[in-house]
């Protein structure tokens, strides 16, 4: 199976740490992927209006690009891109009318889309194709005693039809932690929304969500929080500034991408982690444990 890589807009900018750590980790595991040529923004959210077809064009175009690269599948680490691409894919696979309309609309692309690309998330690849047993065998720097709270957010697990794990109690990131030698810390807010796009107009709503989610993780002993979405990362990391301003007694906690933990454990160089792109500096915790 040939897999192409789709970064999405934010992994090339604010979330370069997510991209570089993911690509380094995949390379170390012998799972090299090639970036799609001429990809466009996926649209970030799947349109929920029943009559909307135009907003599905952007994700489908990316799947056409995947086909042009002679790939059967596309891998995307960003949870929002994963959700949007996969939902658009499932929609057109189940609705030939819509697929026909889209193909006619973008006939200038030269090739039509036939619903034959699979959309993957790296966590799925690690769990199902590689397996966590094989991954554990490749770990050179176990993350011993690092207590990780895994924050899934919304779009990795909802809706159930496309989610990569259980809707209410996903376990894939916890199992990843164990394979890497870390200690997963379960907490009740791991699938509760971070506030998403509210962060543009109403950062105070996000600050309240961040307060609730991170306090819950901290209270259960977490030393870091792992995420898989650049918007969750922004809301839970960068917005800790507003949270601390609004809620006295709030204690900061570093937020990392799961791929950064993976990259450390697999022996990737520190430069690939891009730890300079965080608001709450994760270096003190990682240094104290001897990981960097």
């Amino acid at each position: 199976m040939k897999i192409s890589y789709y970064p999405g807009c934010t992994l090339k900018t604010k979330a370069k740490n997510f991209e570089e750590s993911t690509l380094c980790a995949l390379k170390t595991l012998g799972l090299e992927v090639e970036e799609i040529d001429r990809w466009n923004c996926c649209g970030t959210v799947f349109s929920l209006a029943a009559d909307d077809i135009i907003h599905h064009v952007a994700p489908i175009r990316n799947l056409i690009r995947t086909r042009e690269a002679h790939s059967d599948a596309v891998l995307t680490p960003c949870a929002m891109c994963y959700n949007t691409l996969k939902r658009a894919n499932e929609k057109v696979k189940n609705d030939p009318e819509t697929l026909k309309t889209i193909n006619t609309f973008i006939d200038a692309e030269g090739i039509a889309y036939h619903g034959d690309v699979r959309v993957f998330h790296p966590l799925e690849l690690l769990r199902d194709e590689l397996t966590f047993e094989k991954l554990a065998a490749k770990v050179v720097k176990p993350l011993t005693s690092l207590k990780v709270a895994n924050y899934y957010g919304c779009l990795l697990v909802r809706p159930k039809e496309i989610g990569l794990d259980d809707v209410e109690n996903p376990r894939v990131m916890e199992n990843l932690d164990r394979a890497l030698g870390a200690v997963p810390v379960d907490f009740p807010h791991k699938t509760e929304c971070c506030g998403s796009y509210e962060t543009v107009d109403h950062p105070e709503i996000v600050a309240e969500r961040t307060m609730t989610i991170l306090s819950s993780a901290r209270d259960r002993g977490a030393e870091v929080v792992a995420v898989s979405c650049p918007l969750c990362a922004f809301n839970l990391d960068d917005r800790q500034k507003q949270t601390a301003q609004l809620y006295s007694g709030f204690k900061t906690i570093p937020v990392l991408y799961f791929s950064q933990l993976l990259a450390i454990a697999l022996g990737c160089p520190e430069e690939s982690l891009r730890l300079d792109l965080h608001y709450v500096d994760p270096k003190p915790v990682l240094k104290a444990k001897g990981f960097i």
Partner: protein
Amino acid sequence: MRVTLSSRKVQDEFVKKIEELSGQKILACYQCGKCSAGCPAVSEMDLLPNQVIRFVQLGLKEELLESQSYWVCASCLTCNARCPKGIKIAEVMEAIRQILLRRKKERVVVSRLTDREREDVPPIALISSFRKYTS
């Protein structure tokens, strides 16, 4: 809140439009409240999700259009995941937003965003905000 119920309101085009745009059978809701119980944004809402559905069922268009609830909805889909009748409440919220946005009443006016706002937030936040709050 005082509302007047009438069969005229229930049979209004508005209810049909919401059903059409959301693709949901609004009358299937039996007001169990699981959607509201799971919604992370309720502290910001004037009408709870299950109340929004109720208002749609009763065709209370004026009261609904004054509510702020569907603007603070973040489409987290928890309501969809919890509904025992398989109703997609998030789609109903989207339908109400779309009815208003398609009247060209934008929520986020792009030109009014400050440079600072545009620089600080990542592209993913700006784009999803535009998708949900502009027509």
